[in-house]
């Protein structure tokens, strides 16, 4: 599930021994993940940067307590997410999940007609809008699963919940997302939605 590169354990071991250069490699490897996870929680880039940076620094000091051989990502995410949550509580509410839908299809997709592309884009925008209307907890669990593509263990770490409850939280969130979509009248909630992948 973790799919760790071979040398991660070695890097972590070196960093645990006090090698700051090895740790820098780890930070570089996971800075996207850490920053985006923090962003999903705090909803603003300045706070997300702050939380991720502080999380990495705290993780460095906590490394002696890291259990050798256990996966690094969930451990790191728990620390970063905790920093992010602390900022969210102490700070003002940010523009929630101000993510954008890219203008262009990601490369590798078949180029649709300009009209179809516009419809696609509009559908994705509506879906993102619906996600943004969910409560904080639902939004975060959906973002962790789909936007950050976290494993269950990582989701539990990022959300600060038990691993056993991740699935049920996700399914409750999807249920409520479907309700929001139905309210919007977005066809994504209906079986014949244009958004479904199978027909493309």
């Amino acid at each position: 599930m973790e799919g760790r590169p071979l040398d991660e354990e070695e890097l972590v071991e070196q960093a645990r021994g006090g090698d700051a250069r090895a740790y820098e490699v780890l930070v570089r490897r996971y800075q996207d993940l850490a920053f985006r996870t923090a962003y999903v929680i705090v909803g603003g880039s300045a706070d997300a940067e702050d939380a991720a940076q502080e999380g990495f620094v705290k993780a460095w000091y906590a490394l002696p307590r890291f259990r050798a051989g256990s996966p690094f990502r969930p451990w790191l995410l728990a620390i970063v997410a905790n920093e992010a949550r602390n900022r969210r509580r102490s700070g003002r509410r940010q523009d929630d999940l101000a993510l954008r839908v890219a203008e262009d299809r990601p490369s590798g997709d078949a180029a649709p007609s300009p009209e179809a592309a516009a419809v696609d884009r509009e559908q994705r925008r509506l879906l993102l809008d619906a996600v943004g209307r969910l409560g904080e907890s639902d939004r975060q669990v959906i973002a962790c699963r789909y936007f950050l593509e976290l494993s269950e263990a990582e989701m539990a770490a990022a959300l600060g919940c038990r691993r056993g409850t991740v699935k049920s939280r996700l399914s409750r969130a999807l249920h409520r997302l479907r309700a929001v979509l139905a309210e919007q009248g977005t066809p994504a909630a209906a079986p014949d939605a244009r958004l479904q992948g199978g027909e493309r």
Partner: protein
Amino acid sequence: MSRRELDLDQALADLAASLEFPPTPDLAAAVTARLDEAPARRPAAPARRRGRLAGLVGRPGWRRLAVAGLAAVLLAVAVLVASPGTREAVARRLGLRGVGVQLGGPPPPTVTTRPGERLDLGLGERVTLEEARRRVGFPVLVPGAAGFQEPAAVYVNEAVPAGGRVDLVYRARPGLSASPFTDVGLLVTEFRGQPTPEFLKKVAVLGMVEEVRVGGEPGYWFSGEPHFFTYRDAAGSLQDEQTRLAGNTLVWQRGELTLRIEGEISKQEALRIAESMR
């Protein structure tokens, strides 16, 4: 998964592929610079505290509190150092399930009680009382005492400690002043304490801790000078960085549960609220 579930699943995956996050800042450079600044590669606690406070007092508006915090630290340290012998003797008989009470010994390295962050109490996710009751593996108690039956906010953290933890927060109001350490009127914490490892760590000074009984079960009342207090973080580590100062606090045992009340209240008031929990 049903067809409909698959559709939404696919639609979200499709959305994710075209989603733009803000650009990631160069964290590796910033983090490395901060680690390089530190006197040792993984410095001992005192060096880190110096660095932290230097940064704090440099910021306008933070100076007063940082200095006050530092003064409290120094005072506590001074008193602790004075009575090492007694401290050893007492430390052995203190402690509840999930709570370590350390009288003396090395003070925690940092004080993070600072303006703007004082509401950072290391709480979990904000939920309703009903939701909190569903999420944790123990019966959540609420004070029956008048004025405390309806907490202003309820937080749950399912991950740490094992079995979860619930916090009830009460706003300051006439007759219940805001604590300078938490900014709230009263903070009630409940968790199922395990003998080890401890979830809360307290470093206090002899003479400020009093053994009490709550409903016939053991407890401690901390008062007078602020004491240090550390929670385990979401990753399960006792984070020195999360140490903060706490004011008057009652910690007690109730069966498997360990409870904690913090606020600017008298011992009698704390005991009255504690006895009313059900």
